[in-house]
């Protein structure tokens, strides 16, 4: 059994706790007073963390577990790395790729095919990664020569 992480305490913690909770309270009060639809605002605030903690993170953990059981040790890191990198880039590209905000009256909004763009970005990243690996290998072999 691993040791538990340290629990907080001390003057620095309590000083920043008072300050931080003051800011949190200001945000909550400000939001309740000023946001145009408080129930929607709260739903998005709570919904975001709920979707991440109860759906996204368990799925990621589950995929990690499956990969540990099903992939060979020699290429497991490449599979894990490729999937994680793709997921992180896709998380950013997805709203633009889905283009729910596209309006035919405004051709300057979301003008590009972001699906293709995301694929291109992944291929470019793969190329850069390959170049970096090659340069590091070359440097290592030059050092040892």
């Amino acid at each position: 059994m691993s040791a538990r992480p340290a629990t907080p305490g001390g003057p620095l913690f309590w000083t920043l706790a008072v300050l931080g909770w003051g800011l949190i309270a200001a945000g909550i009060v400000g939001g309740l007073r000023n946001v145009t639809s408080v129930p929607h605002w709260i739903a998005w605030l709570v919904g975001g963390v709920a979707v991440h903690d109860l759906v996204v993170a368990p799925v990621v953990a589950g995929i990690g577990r499956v990969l540990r059981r099903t992939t060979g040790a020699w290429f497991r890191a490449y599979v894990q790395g490729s999937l994680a990198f793709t997921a992180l880039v896709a998380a950013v590209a997805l709203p633009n790729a889905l283009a729910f905000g596209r309006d035919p009256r405004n051709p300057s909004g979301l003008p590009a095919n972001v699906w293709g763009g995301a694929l291109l970005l992944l291929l470019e990243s793969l190329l850069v990664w390959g170049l970096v690996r090659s340069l590091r290998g070359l440097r290592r072999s030059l050092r040892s020569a």
Partner: protein
Amino acid sequence: MVRVPGRLRGLARFLFEPPEAFRVGPFREEAFGGELHRRPNVERNAAWLGLALGVAFTVCFLTGVLSHLIQDPPGWFVWPSRPAGLYRITQGVHVATGIASIPLLFAKLWTVYPRLWRWPPVESVAHLVERVSLLALVGGSVFMVATGLINVSLWYPFGFAFPGGHFWGAWITIGGLVVHVGAKWGTTVAALRRGGGDEIASEGGLSRRGFLRLAFAASAAVTAGTIGQTVRPLERLAVIAPRRPSVGPQGLPVNKTAAEAAVRRRASDPDYRLGVGGAVARPLSLSLADLEALPQREAVLPIACVEGWSANARWGGVPVRDLLDLAGAAPDAEVTVESLQEGGAYRSSELNRGHAHDPDTLLALRVNGERLALDHGFPARLIGPNRPGVMQTKWVARLVVR
């Protein structure tokens, strides 16, 4: 009566140290096995990712609050008209930093996720204060990046007005971050000072350092894929960005079209007249021909959208200060610029004294040598240095002097 405290002690012991058989699902010690979730790896990766996110969120918070102050200035705040491209930089940094932080945030959350299920959940009052604040930090962080990202994709499914919701969410998030810094300062400094350790995963998966590099590489990749929406030389790289700074009528993007603003008929009316009224000695009513007959000035100024894209253009038109002089306004006059739009949050904007009297604040009639396109604000639009795009009012109907 005598046995109750003993039972309570037993219950407390059971809750705080449950037998292995009762530890199920994510509550098991090794539920999240794997090298990356071993404690030294978690602490070191969490420290690096936390440090990067702390800097990124602070930058986003400060630039976001600045943007909010510019758009809705309290009495003590005066935003200058110079340097002309300052807002372009602060808001470009705001959006770019927010986008760059998304892979780092997910990597951090996936790194520390097993701790969500730690048992006992709370070990002291300080720990309770910290853990509840995590709800604000994690909820706020996910909220901020999700709503920000969706908003720049021109999709508004929130049910609340984005600017206020995002602004107040930022205070909750930054408050959670401040508490978290206090709680994790010691372990973060210790983890960063400690040597690497556990660099190679014994089970063949991603190493600790490999995962960290991957997270920062993904952050760099999404930045490279979007930054061209505001840095024109990198436009061709903006393959996942919602905007291209050269795509749009007259080579400029449009945020709100004339059709969306429902001003097509009024803006195309040949009897259009610009009114200059309020605190002036000589109220004016000028046709488009009258405006074109006045001394013209040209200025190269950016349109810098709150959504992070920006683009330079050469604007031509009548300096607002010339119109104020013509109408006999006071030298320290401030101005409300009203649009032909009948409603909407951005149907008018304010020019403080500095902006109203800056020689490059124009009632623009042309862009890049052509008469303004309808979607760029024909017959006349406001364009001034160092202003958010939403405050560069299009289809101007009236200048109300104060």
